[in-house]
């Protein structure tokens, strides 16, 4: 099917080139694919208000997994955050850049939109989260179907990563 689609695309672009003349040739690639995002967006947003899952604010949602309650100190525990950065740099950064959308969402400002429990459950229990948590399901859609990998962190490690997120 992939191949079919590709050959259709090639054909299509050939047709475009054939009809378009010189001006078209200067364009890099072609723009038909753009249509995909606009047609798909309303579909997935139908579940909610149209806000992308990554921008939705769900502070009450604790997610699905071992973490039911997290105490955040009034002050950031810097030692814990440093430890968290170490873990993050080894286990997470391949897909999550601290402050920009990459394979997955950026953790910067995450606690303005998610509960600490939800964040830790997403780290510790991603396989179940993307099946059972509606928000995680929508995020999977938004991020091209790339499922969050379980990196086998311990609860302590996940907690330290959460503390690191507070520093971003």
């Amino acid at each position, binding site marked *: 099917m992939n191949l079919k689609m590709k050959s259709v695309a090639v054909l299509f672009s050939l047709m475009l080139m054939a009809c378009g003349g010189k001006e078209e040739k200067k364009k890099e690639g072609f723009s038909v694919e753009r249509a995909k995002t606009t047609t798909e967006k309303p579909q997935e947003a139908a579940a909610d208000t149209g806000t992308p899952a990554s921008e939705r604010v769900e502070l009450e949602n604790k997610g699905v997994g071992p973490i039911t309650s997290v105490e955040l100190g009034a002050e950031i525990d810097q030692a814990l955050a440093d430890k968290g950065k170490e873990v993050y*740099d*080894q286990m997470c*950064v391949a897909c999550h850049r601290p402050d920009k959308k990459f*394979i997955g969402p950026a953790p910067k400002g995450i606690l303005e939109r998610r509960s600490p429990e939800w964040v830790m459950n997403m780290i510790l229990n991603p396989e179940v989260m993307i099946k059972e948590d509606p928000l995680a399901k929508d995020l999977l859609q938004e991020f091209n179907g790339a499922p969050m*990998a379980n990196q086998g962190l311990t609860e302590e490690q996940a907690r330290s990563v959460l503390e690191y997120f507070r520093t971003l």
Partner: protein
Amino acid sequence: MKTYSYLTMTFIVLATVITGCKDQGENSNGALTSNAAERVYVEPGKFDEFYAFLSGGFSGQLAVYGIPSGRLLKVVPVFSQDPEKAYGYNEETKPMLNTTHGFIPWDDTHHPDMSQTKGVLDGRWVFMNGNNTPRIARVDLTTFETAEIIEIPNSAGNHSSSFVTENTEYVIAGTRFAVPIPQKDMPIKDYKGNFKASLSFLSVDQESGEMDLSFQIRLPGFAYDLVHPGRDKSHGWVFITTYNTEEAHTLLEVNASQNDKDFIAAVNWKKAEEYIKQGKFKTEKAEYAHNIYDEDTHMATSTIKNEVRVLDASELPGLVYFLPTPKSPHGCDVDPTGEYIVGNGKLSADLTVHSFTKMLDAIENKKFDGEAYNIPILNFEDVLGGTVKQPGLGPLHTEFDGKGNAYTTFFISSEVVKWKLGTWEILDRKPTYYSPGHLSIPGGNSRKPWGKYLLAMNKITKDRYLPTGPEVSQSAQLYDITGEKMELLSDFPTIGEPHYASMVPAELIQSKSKKIYRLDENKHPYATTSDANVKVEREGNEVHVYMTMIRSHLNPDNIEGVKVGDKVYFHLTNLEQDYDVPHGFAVIGAENSELLVMPGETETTVWYPKKVGVWPFYCTDFCSALHQEMSGYIRVSPADSNTELTWSLGD
């Protein structure tokens, strides 16, 4: 393995057998007569009860099956390069196949034998011999990977190997082809008296499993066929079948079949240890390679060693005795009590069983019948424990069920025969399809057999499966041996030619099986355990790419500045820490194989870019829904270009 030359005799005999066995063949329809299907059916998602490790024969590998289902679980490359796993192709494992003959990417594997504790199989390691370029390997059963290979010097045809003593004190390796020791340029016809054989004792570190060639015993130049260390009361001894005691150097099928009896050599290895302690050894020059895979650095190293301690059996009394045994015996098998030593005389009409107690008595009272090269030959009648009369044709190998019964394969008459130790009566016989070599019962070569199943390994399968051209597979046949009569349950084709198998209850291994390599324990010098350290470096015409892999991208995925004539090392680290998420790597025109990198592991492949252009690389192991997207490009510029070395992902 010996071929049977007496063509006429064989034909007559076969004709008799075929007629004789006709009724029996019709009665035992094997699987059709019972609920055999239910007993080998393992529900999807359920586990098998036993692991079976079958040697891959001329494939050089070790195949792991689940029993009773016969499902193939894994093929472990040992002495052969394996493009699936990059074993012997990637930079990390190439040293595993190093020998004093150079890089030898193939061998002929024969006898996997498992480590033991107090005479019981313990699921730590499987040892296996390479027959052709003499080597012994150790496969680690937490990773199911080859952890160590040691070359055996002063040996040729490493067939009578790699058998394990009761507490894994030693792995023992014999010599099938006697050779000049040390090797030298001399006429072949001067074999007799001048060619010698070695029996090697490899000690095993009980923590790491690491082997060390502790010492060798120099033996007369016979062909040493199979080995069985003593069990229980005979612990401390090792027994070895011999053929070609004629010391023929040509047309062995005739000339090595002249003597009415060959020998089983009984070697007192506790005595050998005493002699070593007393300094009665000679240190001889002998080069051999010792290759070890380090699980922390994910790399193998090969070291050439230079000498070996040798004890000469012709000079040291009490070390070796010969037990006359009819005729060209193959398997040499000791029962779980250690009392009986079965010689499977291929060309003999009867099975000969020696008694360990009688042997000790004969030694003590010097009941000798001459000597060979100064080694006492014990009087046959004085060591004979019993004879199984006319059990079949071409006995090869015997194992035990721990309930007083023995089971022997018969190559020519194509059957397994069950008989009773002590009374020597035949209790049952069942046909195999066809011509079995060895058989295996879980723990059936140790003090403690789990006497539930028997696996016969057949050499010939001609009409058993859908034909696949002139080459057809070998097979394994599973019998239930819990009842009075054996029942054929199933058969399945095998990889290569399985010469022997070691089987153990799954619970001894499954809980210890490793799932991932931990990134924070990765000590590979070229590992990239964080994306922050991804880079490409040039040193002259060598380019090192430090690349990471995680679902579903390779980092970097755009590389420029590589030139024709460079030697490019791709060092791939799989950043996953989840079970069963390996990633593969391949680049167009690579002269080796893919890489298959386990979670947390680092592997390296070398690529020689030969053509200017932009060339793709990609993940070869279907890892995720976006596996097809897991790819990248490397730009190759002309040798004299100034293209800057750059790398990126997502920019």
